[in-house]
């Protein structure tokens, strides 16, 4: 009937579940998230002018920037909300490491953005005239890169918890950290386009992501403890 189960994996999964319930309750949510990225991309295309040669130049970049801009703000928002409504106080009365909780938070955000993205990929590919041979590489790098972006976004969002006008500060803190991911990610895709060797960039992308995967939850947990102590 009732049991006390504080295994980390249990906690991990239940937090994932909560995040999904909050953000992903219906098909509408799925559609909304796709549309968000979609519209950022359209904004660019229209800004640049819808010419094929131009799109070829900027296609990869647009997808990446769209990805960054659709993960980070929403991640920030949930963290801020859970901070204000006292959920983090409750977390602090749990004997389960906050690190696990935060890892689960970034993973859930990664999935929340990536699942719709994978659905929408065919559309992007058509809109941006991406060659078929580049598609698997695009999906691969975006999947890896978006994990890193979620992890960095988590750090940034926890840096500004409780700060005065933190929302203005956030981009200044996050973008410098995201830049390597962007450069290596786009690097792989451009290499494919130019028929060059993408491996070195890919390895760097993976390396950065792994580093963040290890350190980011610790950093965020530290920062959230500081925020609760205010």
């Amino acid at each position: 009937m009732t049991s006390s189960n504080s295994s980390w994996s249990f906690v991990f999964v239940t937090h994932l579940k909560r995040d999904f319930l909050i953000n992903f309750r219906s098909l509408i949510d799925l559609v909304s998230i796709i549309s968000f990225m979609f519209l950022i991309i359209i904004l660019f295309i229209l800004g640049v002018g819808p010419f094929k040669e131009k799109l070829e130049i900027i296609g990869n970049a647009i997808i990446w920037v769209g990805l960054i801009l659709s993960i980070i703000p929403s991640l920030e928002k949930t963290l801020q909300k859970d901070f204000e409504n006292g959920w983090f106080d409750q977390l602090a009365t749990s004997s389960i490491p906050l690190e696990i909780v935060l890892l689960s938070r970034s993973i859930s955000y990664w999935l929340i953005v990536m699942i719709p993205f994978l659905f929408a990929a065919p559309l992007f590919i058509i809109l941006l005239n991406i060659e078929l041979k580049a598609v698997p590489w695009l999906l691969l790098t975006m999947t890896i890169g978006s994990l890193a972006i979620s992890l960095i976004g988590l750090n940034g969002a926890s840096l500004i918890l409780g700060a005065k006008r933190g929302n203005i500060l956030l981009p200044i803190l996050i973008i410098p950290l995201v830049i390597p991911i962007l450069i290596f990610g786009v690097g792989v895709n451009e290499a494919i386009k130019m028929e060059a060797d993408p491996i070195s960039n890919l390895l760097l992308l993976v390396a950065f992501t792994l580093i963040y995967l290890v350190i980011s939850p610790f950093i965020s947990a530290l920062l959230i403890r500081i925020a609760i102590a205010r």
Partner: protein
Amino acid sequence: MLERHSFVINWLANPNRFSKLTNKLQIPLLSISTIMILLGLYYGLFDSPKDYQQGDAVRIMYVHVPSAWLASFLFLSLAISCVFYLVWKHPLADLISNSIAPIGAVFSILTLVTGSLWGKPMWGTWWVWDARLTSMLILFFFYLGYILLSNAFERKIDGSKSASVLAIVGIINLPIIKFSVDWWHTLHQPSSILRMDGPSIDKEMLLPLTLMMVGFSLFSLFLIIINVKTKLLEKKCEALILKLNLKEFS
């Protein structure tokens, strides 16, 4: 080893001892660094050869290169001092980081500006989006982020902690600045001084460059010390106010 380190730190961390030591260092630091910078400027501007390609424009180097070097070095020091703050929680470490940050930020601006000024005659443009230039710009934003974040909280300690974390994470930018010229083919000059196989630069250029580098370093050390001392005084004032509050309170 670790114990000895923490011993040294503890010894220095005493504000009074710190004041005494730095009071002695202050004047020599200021005078030596001024002399070195003046000498360096003289040699650099009047008594060194033109570059066979760059002409007189090369003289910007004597400001540009030391600034660039210091901007990076100061960030490293900042991060290290932040580690000390987070691990040993000593307030002096925080004061030191707070003092380093604006100076480092100024040096990174100086690098960017002198680089741009140099770029116009050499590359025909103020700015290119090359890896080294960009990573220097990003370094500036790390400094800026540190400064803004450490002031973004109602309570100074909260800001210090958050900002320290940022500075430590920001270290990943340093190797990118350093090695960007080797990793990517860019417009920017590859290293010619700090190289494995020794400097590959004219001796007459090396002298003023060295003078400027050491001069700049000592001068920033001087600035940092002054800064820390001001902040120590500010803290004393705050403590007094706190005491007054306490009296009012009771």
